[in-house]
Structures are given as C-alpha cells and as structure tokens.
C-alpha cells in the first residue's frame, strides 16, 4: 500500500532539481556571487594600498644635512661645507627667479651664523 508512495519518493529524490536560474557560462549563481565579492574586495584592497602608500599627504620636509668632505678626511679645498635640502625651498612664490632670504643654519646645532 505504501509502495507506490515510496517509489514516487525515490523517483523524486533521484530526479535532478530543475534549476532555471542558470549563471553565465557554467557557474552556479552563488559561485558567481562569491567571485564578484572577491573581485570587489581585491579592488578595495588595491585602492586602499594605493591611497596608503602614494596619496597620503607628504610630511613637512625635514632638514637633512649632508656633510661633504669633513675636515678629518683631509683638506679638500672648495668642497668643504654642508648641504641642506631645505635650500630647495628658498624659491619665492613671487617670481620664478626670486628667492626667499631665510636663515636655515639656525636650526642646526653647532653652527653659528647671521642672516646675510
């Protein structure tokens, strides 16, 4: 008496569920979704990295002093002195050939100087 129902149940279990919603190509829909999320997160990570490494505001330029030809190295006439990268900032905004008159040496310990 129960046999027809059982057979029917077995048949139903064996039959492939009909899936009309097919993905693009051979992918399952949820797989497409996961791939899309993965791609999206990768793009976000790239954007974040780009922003972090390249687009952050540059810190204030620090005065770096290079000692060129110290006294102990021997007497190299004409090359003795200090080179400050802050000299790059001397350029005035008023004219392309104008320079600001700043006293850089003030900040460097052990160097005494007077402005101009």
């Amino acid at each position, binding site marked *: 008496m129960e046999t027809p129902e059982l057979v029917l149940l077995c048949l139903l279990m064996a039959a492939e*569920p*009909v*899936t*009309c*919603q*097919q*993905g*693009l190509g051979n992918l399952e*829909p*949820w797989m*497409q*979704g*996961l*791939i*899309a*999320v993965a791609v*999206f*997160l990768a793009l*976000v990570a790239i954007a974040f990295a780009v922003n972090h490494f390249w687009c952050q505001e540059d810190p204030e330029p620090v005065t770096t002093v290079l000692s060129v030809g110290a006294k102990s190295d021997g007497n190299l006439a004409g090359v003795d002195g200090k080179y400050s990268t802050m000299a790059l900032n001397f350029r005035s905004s008023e004219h392309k050939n104008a320079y600001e008159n700043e006293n850089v040496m003030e900040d460097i310990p052990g160097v005494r100087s007077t402005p101009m």
Partner: protein
Amino acid sequence: MEQSAADSRNFIDNTADLIVIAGYFLLVIGVGLWSMCRTNRGTIGGYFLAGRSMIWWPVGASLFASNIGSGHFVGLAGTGAASGLAVAGFEWNALFVVLLLGWLFAPVYLTAGVITMPQYLRKRFGGHRIRLYLSVLSLFLYIFTKISVDLFSGAVFIQQALGWNIYASVIALLGITMIYTVTGGLAALMYTDTIQTSVILGGAFILMGYAFNEVGGYTGLFNKYLEAKTTQTFSEDPIVGNISPSCYQPRADSFHLLRDPVTSDLPWPALLVGLTIVSGWYWCSDQVIVQRCLAGKNLTHIKAGCILCGYLKLLPMFLMVMPGMISRILFPDKVACVAPEVCKQVCGTEVGCSNIAYPLLVVKLMPNGLRGLMLAVMLAALMSSLASIFNSSSTLFTMDIYTRLRPRAGDKELLLVGRLWVLFTVAVSIAWLPVVQAAQGGQLFDYIQAVSSYLAPPVSAVFILALFVPRVNEPGAFWGLIGGLLMGLARLIPEFSFGTGSCVRPSSCPGLFCGVHYLYFAIVLFICSCILILTISFCTTPIPQKHLHRLVFSLRHSEEEREDLDVDEQQGPLFPVQNGQLEHAVEMDEPPPATPGLFHRCLLWFCGMTGSDPSSSSPPTAEETRAQQLEDITEDPHWARFVNLNALFMMAVAVFLWGFYA
C-alpha cells in the same frame, strides 16, 4: 475596466479591514502631532531642516520612505512581471550611489552651509541664472515625474482594490498628507516617514510570504515563470491579427540582471554606467533626498543613515519585483495580456496590464484585515513620498524663487509662503490627475526613468564638476546646462509625440531619434555636457580660490575665510532699510498689534508660529550656535572607521547579490 471595478467593488468593506486602516491613520496622525509638539518649527532651520538634529535611523528611514513611493509598488512589480528580474538593478544601483552622497557630496553641502541645491550652485558659481534655472527644472521634474507617477499608481491601486471614486480618495489622501506637511515641517515628516517605512516593510513582507506560498516557494517561481503566458494571443483587430510569440512569451533572459548590450531591453553597460548618472542626479543633487541628509545631526549620523537606506534598498527585489513575477504566473491572462482589446477590458489601457500585477495580488491573495494593511502600505508609500516632494518643492520655491522676487521678506513671511506653496502644488497635482490617467500608462517605471534620463544628466554633470573641478566657472556651468537641456529635449519631444508604442503596435518614431536605449542616451548626454562645461570654463576666467573655500571637495577642510559670491543677497534681509528711506522707517513704527483672535491664535499655533516672533533678530540661541558648529565636518575617528567598515560590508553584500543574479 467597469467589469473589474464591479467584481472588486466590495473588497474592503468588512470590519477588520476598516479597523486596520483607521488604526493606521491614527498612528500616523499621532506621530505627526507628537513630533510637531516636540520640535521647533518657527524658524527657517527648524521648519526646513528639522533643526539639524536628526539621528541616523530617522535619516535612513526617511531617505528610504521618500524614495519608495506607490510608483515603486506598481512600477517595479509591473516591469518585473513584464520582463523579469533586471528592473531590480535600478534599486541595487542606487545603493552604491547613496553611499556617494554620504561620503562625497554631503560633506561639501554641509560645509557650504546651504539649505537648497540651487543655493549651493549660487554660492559656488555666483550669478542668479543657474539658480533660477535649476529651481524651475526641479519643480518641473517633480510635477511631471514624481508626483504624477505616484498619484497615477495610487489611483491604479485604489481602482483595482477598492473601486472607490478616484478623485474623492486622492483628495482625501492629499488632505491628510498636507496636514502634516504644512504644519509640521521636516521634523514631523521624518518621524512619520520612520513609521511609514516600518508599515511599508511589514506589509510588503507579509504579501511576499503569501505570494511565495501560493506559487510553491522560491524554486516554484523560477520553474514556472518562463511558462507564464496568456492563452488569448489572437487579436480581433485585423491590423494586429495573430500576435508573434516574442510579444507574449517571457523573455529568455528574465532571470538575469546583466543582459545583452545590443539587443536586450536593459543592456548591462547602460544599467551600470548610464543608470549611475541618472541616480547621481536623483540621490546626490536633488533637493528631496539631500534635504533629508542635511537634517542629520553630524556627518557620522548622515553616513550611517545612508548605510541604513542602502540596506533597505536591497529589499525591493524580494518585496516587489519577485511578487510581480509571481502575479504573472498566477494570473497570466490578466497581467500578461497581449491583445489590445483584452487589455482594454482588463485594466483600461491597450498597451499592457503589467501595472496591475501588485494590486491584483493584494486583492486575490490577502485575507480580510490584511487587505486593509496592504491598503495602508500603499497609502504610506504614497503619502510619504508625496509629502517629501511637497516639502522640498516648497523649500525650493521659498528659498530660491520667492526670496529673489521679494529680497526683503522676513522669516515669518517666508514660512507662510512655504505653506501656501504646498497648497498650490496640491491643487496642481489634482488638476494633473486626469491627464495622467488618460496617458497610456504602459510600463510606469520605464516612463519615469526615460524622462529623467533625458533631463537629468546635464544637472548631474554640473554638480559633479562643480564639486570636483575647482576650475569650472559660471558661464561653463550655465551653457552646459542649457546645451544639455536642448539635447535632451531633442530626444524627449519626438519620442513623446510619436508615442512609446508597444510590442504589438510598434511606435513609428524614426530610429535616429528613438533607436538608442534611453540609458545609453543618458551616457552620451552626460559626456557631451561635461565636454561643453569644461571647454567653456577653460576659455573663460577662473573663479579665484578665495571664493571656493569649503565649496569644492578638495577644499572641504580648508580653514580660510571665504568671500561669498552671494554676499549681496545675504546682506539683503539684514539691512531692509536702505539709505534714503530712513525717514519713512521712523514713521512706520507701529504700535504693538492687538492680541489676535482665538481662531487666529489657533491657526498660528497649528502652523507653529507662536512664541517668540521668529522674524525679530533675537540673539542666537543655543540651537543656532550649534547649527553653526555643524558646518564643520570633523568626525570621531573611532565612529568614522566603524561607519566606513559598515559601508564596505554593505557594498560586499550588494556585490554578492549582483553576482548571484547576474
């Protein structure tokens, strides 16, 4: 139409339904009154911007409720029934754009310290013509896309479900909406919007449950949809005759969001790019939405509100589009009718009856009591979006047009004019109703999108360039807007004069004008407007940077003093008496007016104009100084990070769903 009205005339006349509807109205009016008593609505900032004191969930709920109108229930479900899932892409595109609003646009609007969007353009560019043009265009778009479509779809629903007299019910609806719009201002609106959102979602979820139960669950929908077609495929009209199967069979790509870029009804590049442009106008530079954002307490609350709205925007696919498709499965002869005379008999229009998909589900599936709830849902959607549009259009008219006509108007006069304008808009909407009804309401959602695609892209181009390119100046923006308008009209006018046509009777519009998909046209229009704006801007003198601090995105954190370009206007109301008129001013000193009569006082209280006279220049109250501080956009870094992560999560969920239904 008469027949369908007749057999559905007595659907809502039992006690359970009536109790639910009455309860709903009491709830809405109660919340409206409560928020009226609670909030300050006697000042410009209080009435139009809710005192800038809203926390995140009213902001998010209000964004959602003013976006979702009855047009969505009818239009999304109808287009879903006609052509499958893809229409949900409209909603799922918007949830990315609403994040753009919170993260890129709102900070600049806040620091600019503006109330309306035309006012922002005035500050950014100077000159009056752009401001006037944008106000008029916005008001035009409100009446011809938003208000008319919402009223039409509300009317479709009422006709299908109730068989009531449309004019009586629409006038009653508008009356109730008007009460809390006119009296309460934005704060009352946003609190009632929160209630409306929960009613909309609750009712729509229940209907979705019934619909899926009827069709055999989620798999049932996907198994049966492609076979849902009408049996009456022969028209008695000899010109039409036998209708080709492509007109009545469901599309083969019904279950895909992303469709073929050339031949399909909604090509994927158009959906991803063109729609983003149109949504950019709707969500980022339109008064209705932005005003809700500006009412937020601070930037973090605004962002959180945008995220909430984004999550809610995930739902329409399941709450509206899928039930619409189910409706087609259950009632193929009605919803998917194809022969013109059959359609005419079913729903009164010849081009198709997909618009009745959602109302039909409500009428046929829901038991007593729940039908009343669904009516409340539709009313909630209709009223909340209409109220938003009324409030925003009154804001636009008052702040941008009326102040131009009468520069010396005091605050009290402005508030009064704002309320009178709402009355006027309501009158125009009612007068417009017969036109909307007579118009062929084929696929409603497409109609809104088409009109917006022809008119909105120049506006979004101007806003995006104004925010991100400081070099853009006034002539560029103005001529860009005008050139874009002319191009848009060149497409709009032929298309509407030839008629949109249907599958059975194609429109005779030549392919040169109407062949391009409207979203592709939006892309072209946007690019042309951008080129026009940039070319003219680079050929004319730039705006000095001293006028732009905190008005463009790159300078939003700038601390410099800004020399406002609209400085003449700001000083107008402050010095109402110019030199030469001073003598008269002394004579015009009136004795304090007599105490107004009882009725007058009641009216004033109702409109929230009692208490201290708002037009008198009182010293800034605590609230005003707080509003001043709100122009700064600093955020608590901890909460800012929390909100950012949440946005990322929401986008990941949305991207998953896009992939799932691609």
